[in-house]
């Protein structure tokens, strides 16, 4: 078995800690601003709950008949902390015990797949809330849906919605990038000799990262 460099062990542990931190820090945020809210409103998504001005946003959404947001209606908030915890520990375990290029690749692929799935799930909920509107709502704009952007900015009536990762999300992304870096390091991509070999893997991984970003 090839030697597993100490730097990779450290990077995998750091990656694990980054991922674990997402259990505590907000992962995503949707910022809303309107003429009446110059100070802005924020909806924060944590691993296990929603934060920010949820009640105020719920209050405002009743005009357009959007369902009110309640943490207990999302199964995600129950399982997400465990999944994130699992990935964090997995990364640390890979560095401390598994110590192989292959194990790093498996971790990388599964974690990336999780990222994609999570984003799809997030989009699905946004679609659901944005389209499933009360027909007796006070304000009905024909053809108008209120799905917030998955990432980036979108104007929804008087509200501008801006959706971006928050601290936890950025740290998870950083964790994923670190794992990817370790893999490249192990495949020798960073040395001249191993570069060609790794290109194939990279071609496979790039679309996933782009999607996650």
């Amino acid at each position, binding site marked *: 078995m090839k030697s597993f460099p100490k730097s990779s062990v450290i990077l995998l542990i750091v990656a694990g800690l980054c991922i674990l931190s997402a259990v505590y820090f907000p992962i995503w945020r949707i910022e809303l601003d309107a003429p009446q809210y110059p100070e802005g409103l924020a909806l924060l998504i944590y691993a296990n709950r929603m934060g920010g*001005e949820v009640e105020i946003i719920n*209050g405002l959404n009743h*005009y357009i008949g959007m369902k009110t947001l309640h943490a207990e209606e999302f199964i995600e908030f129950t399982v997400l902390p465990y999944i994130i915890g699992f990935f964090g520990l997995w990364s640390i375990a890979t560095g401390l015990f598994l110590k192989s290029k292959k194990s790093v690749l498996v971790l990388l692929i599964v974690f990336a797949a999780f990222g994609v799935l999570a984003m799809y799930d997030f989009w699905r909920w946004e679609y659901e809330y944005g389209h499933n509107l009360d027909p007796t709502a*006070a304000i009905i704009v024909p053809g108008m849906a209120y799905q917030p952007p998955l990432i980036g900015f979108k104007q929804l009536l008087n509200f501008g919605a801006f959706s971006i990762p928050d601290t936890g999300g950025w740290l998870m992304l950083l964790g994923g990038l670190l794992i990817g870096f370790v893999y490249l390091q192990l495949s020798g991509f960073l040395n001249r000799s191993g570069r060609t070999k790794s290109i194939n893997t990279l071609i496979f991984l790039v679309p996933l990262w782009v999607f996650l970003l």
Partner: protein
Amino acid sequence: MKTKVLIFVMLAMAAFVFMTSCRPKNAGTSVKGDSAVKSFVAPGQYDEYYNFVSGGFSGQMSVYGLPSGRLFRVIPVFSVDPEKGWGYSEETKPMLNTSHGFVPWDDLHHVELSQTNGEINGKWAFGNANNTPRLARIDLKSFKTAEIIELPNSGGNHSSPFGTENSEYIVAGTRFSVPSDYANGDVPISTYKENFKGHISFVSVDKESGKMDIAFQLKTPGVNFDLARCGRDKSHGWFFFSCYNTEQANTLLEVNASQKDKDFIMAVNWKKAEEYLKAGKGVKQKVKYAHNVWDEQTHTGTSTIKNEVTVLDVATLKDICYMIPCPKSPHGCDVDPTGEYIVGSGKLAAVIPVFSFDKLQKAIANKAYDGEYGGIPVIKYEEALYGEVKKPGLGPLHTEFDGKGFAYTSFFVSSEVVKWNIKDLAVVDRVPTFYSVGHLCIPGGNTRKPSPKYLIAYNKITKDRYLPTGPELTQSAQLFDISGEKMQMILDFPTIGEPHYAQAAPAELIRNNGQLKIYPIGENKHPRVAKGESESKVVREGNKVHVYMTAVRSHFSPDNIEGVRMGDEVYFHVTNLEQDWDVPHGFGVKGANNAELLIMPGETTTLKWVPDRVGIFPMYCTDFCSALHQEMQGYVRVSPAGSKTPLTFHVGKQASSEEKPAQ
């Protein structure tokens, strides 16, 4: 011949031009070109200072921004305010209770901002009631009147609410001497000299809660106490009160109280008074006064009638008070930032005397007295005098300080502000005011560290300054830039009521003091709160109907109420469920004999309503709260006395075919 006529005409014209140009310049010419820039605060920008201005006979306190002169808020204090439900809602009625019962009006003259180490701390503003003697404390996190205490043994609390360097005490000196509440008051008015007494209250203020208490009262000879200032820094522990009518006249005071060449500034050693109090020298006297406290959790005021006050008699307890002669009928009595100079402004005097605290101490040590006045030693005038400002102007009233060695005195009669040097007592500048200035304000002007950028003059007369509005004209404030050597007028703005004294504080100090945005609904301990729509209900208790109502954008719950009968008293306890800044709801119901409610987010407020006839009564939200504000309405059905209409209530239930409206 023709030439001669021409020369004559030309000479006549020249003379006319010359003579008219000799006329004093009018108001317009005293404004310089860059004044607009100096007072301009662009839309959306904040002002540099909060200005807390007494509302005089409006009984309220107003809040302006400086240098823009924009009005932000009128805080209801001593007078009812139907716009805000103050004095009309069941919760606020106790705040205006006194030993005379509910008093809906008063006259707020002076403002004092709380201090720590002689600097403004941004916690509270105090105001005085000049008619039914009271003292109010306003919380500067909520801009709401938090406490009002009545002052016994007093008639007109004018010499108030001036405070000590750490707001240990706020004083309240009676303007009218009257027979003590604990003595027989049914005496001939002509027995003023023997039966009328002055009382000065020292009201303690709790450092944390701000809770007020009358620590003690000083009983003095019968005179009129006018204004007061605490000693600061080296003179901390002393208080100075101007008194007039030392002639002790009881009628036609404008003549009879203007006879003596000198009245007094009374110097009070309040640390000494504290010692006497500790030694048990105070006499507990039976009196009656109201103490009203607002509770931010129950959103309710409570009025307690108290029956005792401790009085220290300054005629028998020596070393508390000393009289400093001061020409003539002194009004303002102001202490400079170093605490050394005490400026007396005799309304009818031709000079401004400046007294020295050090000389006063020496005079007391050497007993340099000139007899007694009502048992109080009178210091020899020259022994306390630092010097006099000669020919300063006519009718000096009040003095503020810039901390750079200058004093600014207002002159009512000559309608001007005069800047003079405290050390050499020389006048260095004077500017006209429009017209007849009363009080002055420099931000922090009564503290150890004034902020000498602006000076505001509060005028009594405006005449031609604004567009006319019939016989009653606005009063005004005028803003001067005093950052340079010469004072420069930069703005003129109208005020509410009549502005007397005002104070100003840096905007940051107030803005960052933990400003309240909402009341957390979870902390609402109102006995009839409904913390959610599911808790809204209507309950009959005999002939009293209690509506536990909620308000949220954009409906009330319940909004249909039936089963109210003639003879009922209906209490709408409206809880604003919003937890968002700047979303108040209002509540009005047809025929209400009181006012509206204005309910802040998380607050519960009660309106009492006694229906006067059978029928349907609309109710609605009075504060434009949302896009569907106009839909925020409901109905109350009133049936005849003894009617069998059941008590029902709901929101959102439309009449169906089975549910025909009762006939």
